């Protein structure tokens, strides 16, 4: 009788232990998810295949760019956040294709696709070892999500078990109308990025 009871208790303990293992294990998506490499604006963040440094952050109400020789103005109901970054490849030529803007509340904005007609200076960017390149990352975000945000950058969309650079933007002062301090009316993206031939 005692032996049966002991076996039963052992079985229950085993079941409880297995259940504990099951509920405490990381989700499969987390296990094979991207590996974050964190830094601030101005830091060089070193991932597996690329390095990135955010050099400048600008906010604008409108963007201006060239499309087949004519000026195109892109308006938004929110605010444009433009991050100028310098990319460098590590041991191999690589391309960086994906970026997103994660606001303080967790809302995540993908890199805009409204500039897909411009093929130079925006994602995807190909970088070769020893030849760093600058690019602009452009996000269309809600003004409330502009401060304390994180810019996430990776080689490709499903960066499973690969590095993802996470650049913290830090607090951004806001004006009475809710827009970040220093928001310009129009930002001209047809201008070359500092120090890089067009």
């Amino acid at each position, binding site marked *: 009788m005692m032996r049966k009871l002991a076996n039963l208790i052992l079985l229950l303990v085993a079941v409880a232990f297995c259940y504990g293992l099951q509920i405490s294990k990381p989700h499969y998506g987390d296990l094979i998810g991207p590996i974050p490499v964190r830094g601030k604006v101005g830091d060089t963040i070193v991932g597996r295949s690329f390095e990135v440094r955010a050099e400048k952050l600008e906010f604008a109400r409108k963007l201006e760019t060239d499309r087949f020789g004519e000026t195109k103005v892109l308006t938004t109901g929110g605010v444009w956040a433009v991050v100028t970054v310098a990319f460098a490849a590590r*041991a*191999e*030529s690589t391309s960086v294709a994906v970026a997103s803007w994660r606001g303080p509340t967790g809302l995540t904005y993908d890199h805009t696709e409204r500039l897909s007609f411009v093929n130079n200076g925006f994602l995807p960017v190909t970088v*070769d*070892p*020893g*030849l*760093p390149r600058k690019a602009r990352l452009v996000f269309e975000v809600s003004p409330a999500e502009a401060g304390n945000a994180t810019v996430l950058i990776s080689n490709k969309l499903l960066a499973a078990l690969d590095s993802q650079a996470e650049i913290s933007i830090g607090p951004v002062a806001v004006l009475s109308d809710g827009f970040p301090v220093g928001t310009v009316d129009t930002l001209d993206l047809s201008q070359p990025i500092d120090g890089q031939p067009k």
Partner: protein
Amino acid sequence: MTAQSVVQDNGLGERKWRRRSLWGLLVLIPLTLAVEAYDSVKALLGDNDLFERSVAWGQSAHFGGSDWRLTDLRGAFGMKSLPPDSVPVLADFSVTVGDPDLQKLWLGCKVMLIDAEGRRWSPTSIVSLRTPDNVQTCISAIFSGAKTGETLNLRETFLVPKAATKTIRPAVGLGSERPHFLLFQLEKD
């Protein structure tokens, strides 16, 4: 046979089987790991250019069913609007087709430049130079329908830092030959 001897026999048999099982685990656990890892190892070896096969200057090497020979490697100096301290490099190959099933054998064809530090450059899209009609890239040659005995002229364009041009060597990897790849030596080697 008394009841006691049966019990004793069972005890002996149980011990023997327990020992056999433990030895069995020694075989089964590594075997399970090997079976589980097989696909991953196969993918790792099949997707990466890991082991070089050196080809002397002027020699051709049988690779992916065809004979590959490096004919030229030169810099295209004097081009404007390029990143500072960079130079376009052209690598020319002459390939005599053996097995014409290029779509299978040349799948995943990758031409690259490797320097002394092991850094690898892939063909660039930043520089586009005019090429003669009979010159193709590795990928376009796959769909050229070339027959056995034909010679293909391949050219790939790279953009490398000036400082790396002294030690770069061209290399070719093909899906059917991975993890091996060809590393071509230059005349000066």
